């Protein structure tokens, strides 16, 4: 398949394991390095407020080769927690989000789309994957519906 060949830094996997096993973080935002060669951790945080996480994605930027700053795609891992509508307690699901805003540059979109598999394959234990292209796609309720398959209360 057509892939960019970008590599995944060890930090990406360490941070993911800290989130998954040690519950150290609530979310991790990954980005490609400026030379598009490697996927790195941009931010790992234990902030539980979805809106702050969302802001992080919405305001993400990418620098093009000529140095222009524009909207940027990102990858993110979010440890989603929700309670079931049936009252059978709460669930935790690790969600992978491929964020690629429609108004980002075509180069950035292409590089992120063709590098996604590399990161996804390095992270074991992702329950749900989400492809998000505009701000509506990363509203809490939209994501909750997808992650919980409509079972959240």
């Amino acid at each position, binding site marked *: 398949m057509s892939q960019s060949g970008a590599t995944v830094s060890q930090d990406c996997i360490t941070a993911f394991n800290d989130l998954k096993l040690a519950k150290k973080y609530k979310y991790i935002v990954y980005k490609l390095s400026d030379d598009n060669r490697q996927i790195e951790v941009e931010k790992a945080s234990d902030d539980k407020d979805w809106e702050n996480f969302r802001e992080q994605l919405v305001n993400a930027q990418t620098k093009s080769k*000529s140095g222009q700053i524009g909207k940027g795609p990102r990858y993110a891992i979010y440890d989603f927690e929700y309670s079931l509508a049936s009252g059978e307690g709460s669930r935790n699901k690790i969600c992978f989000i491929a964020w690629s805003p429609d108004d*980002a540059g*075509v180069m950035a*979109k292409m590089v992120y789309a063709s590098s996604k598999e590399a990161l996804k394959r390095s992270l074991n234990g992702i329950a749900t994957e989400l492809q998000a*292209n505009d701000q509506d796609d990363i509203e809490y309720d939209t994501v909750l519906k997808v992650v919980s398959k409509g079972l959240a209360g």
Partner: protein
Amino acid sequence: MASQQPLPNSQPPMDVYGGDEVSALVLDAGYCHTRAGFAGEDVPKSVLPSFYGSLKSTNTDSTTASYRDIFGDECLIPRPDFEIKNYMSRSESVVEDWDAATKMWEHMLIKRLQPEKETPPSNNGLNDPAEDGEGNVAMDDVENQERPLAENPLLMTEAPWNSGKAREKAIEIVMENWGCPAFWMSRTPVCAAFAAGKASALVIDVGGANTSVTAIHDGLVLKRSIQKSPIGGLWLSSQIRTMWANSDPRVDIVPSYMVENKTPVDAGAPAQARLRKFPFEFTPSFRHYEEERLLTEFKESVVEVWRGPGRYSNPGNEELVKSQPGRVFEMPDGANQMWREQRYRIAEGMWDEAAALPTPDAEVKIQTIPELIKAALSNVDVDLRPNLLANVVVTGGTSLLNGFNDRLNNELMAMYPGMKIKLHAAGLTTERRFGAWIGGSILASLGTFHQMWISRKEYEENGAGIVEKRCK
């Protein structure tokens, strides 16, 4: 409705897409046009019709004839004994005539894209007579000629239904004839989806000879989903031909090359033009090609897709259109008329089979776009469908028809009520026309991509079968 179709890049990009690998070339072949250029650039440097000319010349003994192939739009001009051919297959949009394909690609990749090689001083004529010591230099020159692209990795795009044999043939030409150091083949819908920032998408490619619908999941083509139908640009042309032949008075297609001068006439009046006289007959294929130019202009400026909701044939729609301003189209010979309701009928057959006008070559059933989509989705896993419908990528030059995306959106909403449907169509016309080329251009320009290329060494060790193994 506009919100369904984001036009993110209505401004031309201020910078080239940039890249590390400057020497890689990208080749994207279609039935109507072949696009070639340098990886990292935002548009292909060379876009030529896949149609080429074959010039017949009778040899001196006047019993045998030889043919010379001529490439490039500017060379397709009135000449005697001149046939227009195409190296691609119209029904499949894959290479049909490999000899012609090789020549065409060489013309583009080597003649048009490579700097002219300096003639070595030994044989540029300035040092004549050179009686001694030019042997080595001449040998080097021959060596270079044999491997004209020895420094350029080449990325080629292909239709998702391209055969394994055709892929092997391609790598053989690239490696054996041109001496490329590395090769890669990408499928056009994958390039288009990636360029839209999506690893999973339903790609609707409305091209010149074919319209295809392909589901992509995590960067892989879902083979069973692939659907295609000849309802592309050329099919629209044949619809226009039928309409013009049957209209009263009949609309004659007089291509530009036949007109010497014209006098302005009122709308609907017969043309007053003097036609050029040629001392030779034209081949039907040349005439047809020239007519196609005129039809393309008509498609670009007059034809419009009924936006919906619902079909154009629904009661009231035609009356509504009749009350709205039409568009005037002037033929090369000066004849002109106003097109109102007819201009919607041409593209309606893409959506509504009953509305398609009869065409001479309609022996096969033409699948409409809604039928293609339905068939494609019914062949993919039920769980994947919602995500595909929320990520519909529209590409291909014919999708630039006015109103196309609005109609597509309406059709999808009617077919899949309650589902989230979102279309993605690039705002820039170049990104729509060259979507797959641009995707390939970015990929081939990435510094990290060098580890993905099939290298010459791998090819030499494994043979042409390596393409099937690597380019999944």
